[in-house]
């Protein structure tokens, strides 16, 4: 994991075409308190304005990991330190 975020901050990381479309590989911010689940977070990203609204226009095409573990839309964010967004994986 990257450097430990300061209190209340969450590290958001972006990979593959999400990194390209957001123009970011990572950012640190304090998430709004009403974001409880992965689904809430995806919806928030899609309403965040350019370039996030375009990058997150199809949330069903985006996968999320919380602290290095895959997380479904219903998963609670809790005290996550690092949340990553990426397309379905294509290794192997």
């Amino acid at each position, binding site marked *: 994991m990257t450097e430990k975020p300061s209190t209340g901050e969450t590290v958001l990381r972006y990979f*593959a*075409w999400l990194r390209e479309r957001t123009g970011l590989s990572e950012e640190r911010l304090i998430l709004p308190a009403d974001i409880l689940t992965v689904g809430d977070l995806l919806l928030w990203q899609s309403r965040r304005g350019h370039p996030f609204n375009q990058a997150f226009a199809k949330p069903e095409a985006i996968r999320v990991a919380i602290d290095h573990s895959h997380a479904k839309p219903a998963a609670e964010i809790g005290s996550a330190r690092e949340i990553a967004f990426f397309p379905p994986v294509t290794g192997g």
Partner: protein
Amino acid sequence: MAVRVSEADFDVSEEMARLAGDDTGIGGVSIFVGKVRGEAGGEKLVSMTLEHYPGMTEAELERIEAEAQQRFRLSASLIIHRVGELKPGDNIVLVIACSPHRGDAFGATAFLMDYLKTCAPFWKKETLVSGTTRWVEARESDDEAAAAWVSIGK
């Protein structure tokens, strides 16, 4: 049991010899090597760039390997996955499973590959001869192959 993410190529016989060591309980070794195809969607491929999620990749590969150990009788196993820019014909991935008997070796190799393809955070970007670049899309058949193991159970 070992996993490795690396830009460097691997030598299959060297890796096999190191993994099996002097364990004479091993009766079968199954090896899978994934390679870069020289063609994508009818067009010539110039290169393929592999991106991954450092930290999560290793964690995920270790989880997959631990799951394989639960399901199969394994004496030793190894997963090596390359990242960075690769050319047609280059090796991408190596999976080796050593077991007392061939059934477990074959099964574990297939299981490790099926799960790796759907769970391990790697992404491929193709550069074609026309100059276009594109991210490879996930295949439904890969999800189905991994899901099939769930119904087979332990």
